[in-house]
């Protein structure tokens, strides 16, 4: 009985988690006039592709998709690389000040970075990166979460004997990193890469501040769609469907690994 109640509750939560997305597709596939119907439409209509075409006519959406793809892709690759590098140092190398530096790294996750956004913007104006993808990619090349995540994984998964054996054979630290650490780190780095890609793809505030509507990322283009003078829900939701649903589908396919990663990263002190 109690178990059945658990299932019912979880099913209800699953329903509430999925339904808004489903309904967004319903609206995105209708004509604006259908929204005024009572009861509201609950099944998809046949207007989806016409609405999507309208999205591409209203904002530079192809460019936005390309920008987002390049930005999120390069950030993900860089974060995977630099986090593994720093994680290797924190997990397996000995150096003075290691513990305090790791503590600082973790503590920086708590710093509300949004508060520095005005000087950051002024800095970007100074070095003429406003409107350019550099302003998105360079500050995001590595982050504390990634470093911490890889440190945790490598201190568990990388056998110290393997490194010592390499040392005895005369391998430099860099060779060890390249030939021993990187192969070991691959599964965790892949999860980190996916998490990073998703959060970079979804990032909104900083791109909104530093980019222009003419050269946007997907999220900036979507917000342009949503803040038109006329309230065109169908247009906004059609854009949302193209700009975010593919990512959600990929997540559902790879979800098991990603969730494992999140839950592992979550277990702290």
């Amino acid at each position: 009985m109690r178990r059945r109640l658990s299932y019912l509750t979880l099913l209800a939560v699953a329903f509430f988690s999925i339904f808004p997305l489903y309904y967004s597709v319903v609206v995105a596939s209708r004509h604006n006039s259908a929204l005024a119907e009572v009861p509201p439409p609950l099944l998809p209509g046949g207007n989806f592709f016409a609405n999507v075409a309208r999205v591409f006519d209203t904002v530079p959406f192809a460019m936005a998709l390309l920008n987002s793809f390049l930005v999120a892709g390069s950030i993900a690759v860089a974060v995977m690389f630099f986090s593994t590098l720093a994680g290797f140092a924190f997990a397996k190398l000995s150096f003075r000040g290691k513990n305090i530096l790791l503590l600082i790294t973790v503590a920086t996750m708590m710093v509300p970075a949004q508060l520095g956004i005005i000087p950051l913007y002024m800095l970007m104006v100074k070095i003429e990166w406003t409107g350019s993808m550099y302003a998105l990619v360079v500050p995001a090349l590595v982050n504390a979460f990634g470093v911490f995540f890889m440190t945790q994984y490598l201190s568990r998964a990388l056998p110290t004997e393997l490194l010592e054996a390499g040392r005895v054979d005369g391998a430099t630290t860099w060779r060890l990193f390249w030939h021993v650490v990187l192969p070991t780190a691959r599964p965790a780095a892949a999860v980190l890469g996916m998490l990073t890609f998703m959060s970079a793809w979804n990032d909104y505030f900083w791109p909104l501040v530093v980019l222009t509507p003419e050269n946007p990322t997907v999220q900036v283009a979507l917000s342009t769609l949503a803040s038109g003078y006329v309230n065109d829900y169908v247009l906004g939701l059609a854009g949302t469907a193209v700009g975010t649903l593919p990512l959600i589908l990929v997540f559902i396919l790879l979800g098991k690994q990603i969730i494992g990663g999140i839950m592992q990263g979550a277990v702290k002190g």
Partner: protein
Amino acid sequence: MATLQATARRRHRRLVRHTLDLKLSPYAYIAPFFLLFCAFGVFPLIFTAWVSLHEWTLTSDVHTFIGAENFTTLLGDGYFWNATFNTFSIGIISTVPQLVLAIWLAHLLNRPLRAQTFFRITLLVPNVTSVVAVVVIFSQLFGRDYGLINWMLSWFGIDGVAWAEGTATSHVAISAMIMWRWTGYNALIFLAAMQAVPKELYEAATLDGASNLTQLRKITIPMIKPTIVFVVTVSTIGAMQILAEPLLFGAGSGAGGITSGGPDHQFQTLALYVYDLGFNKFDFGYASAASWVMFLFVVLAAGVNYLLTRRMGGAFK
């Protein structure tokens, strides 16, 4: 002889290189993170303090030093206090029920159930939905005339709630978006912690006849307290910085006033207020002052909640 010397020198050089490699490589490997954090994290925060002491706008190259004037103006600024109220109001409405629900969901998932992966993935789907998408979708759901939520409320005789227009209703709508996006994520974090609790504790409690709810209160919550403290602290910091939701809700709900958080500033949060000052009015000096006061609030709120959750009862250590 000469060759012997050469060998010794070579060996010496190799030793030096080896020592350098051992000593310096670790620092080189962690350097990218620290360099980047200093340039794009620490420097802006400190520079904010400097800017806040000046009359500093985008359009003028003259930055007059005015001491604490920005701060004194700010403390007399009704919109600032309004934004402070809204931030705390939305923060509480969105975070408290969310964390309670998250612990409960984690508790439900923390037992042998079928379709674990399915439930976990669906819990996390809202979190991988971008905030822009969330607000666009929910603005439609919360629409006054054709929104699904008002349609359902009309079954109960409640008609035409103008969600975006009222203070309380707009706070509820925005909190609903935040809850939808974050409850599942936090539930999984709690679940991860719960799985580390030794199963014997539950077995013993079951033998003693402790009910499910008692087990949750007496075993699970005390055992995962470090995680609760962590999640509460992080959620507080996040809640104090809510920006995208009110910004886009103002844009998409048709209520007007995009950076003002509604025409009457009814859902303008502190972060949105700073954004309005900085990137709508381009008054960098004043915006920086507001940023610093907001920073103070973040530290205060996070500190208070950290202490509160830590002191919260708990028999186990």
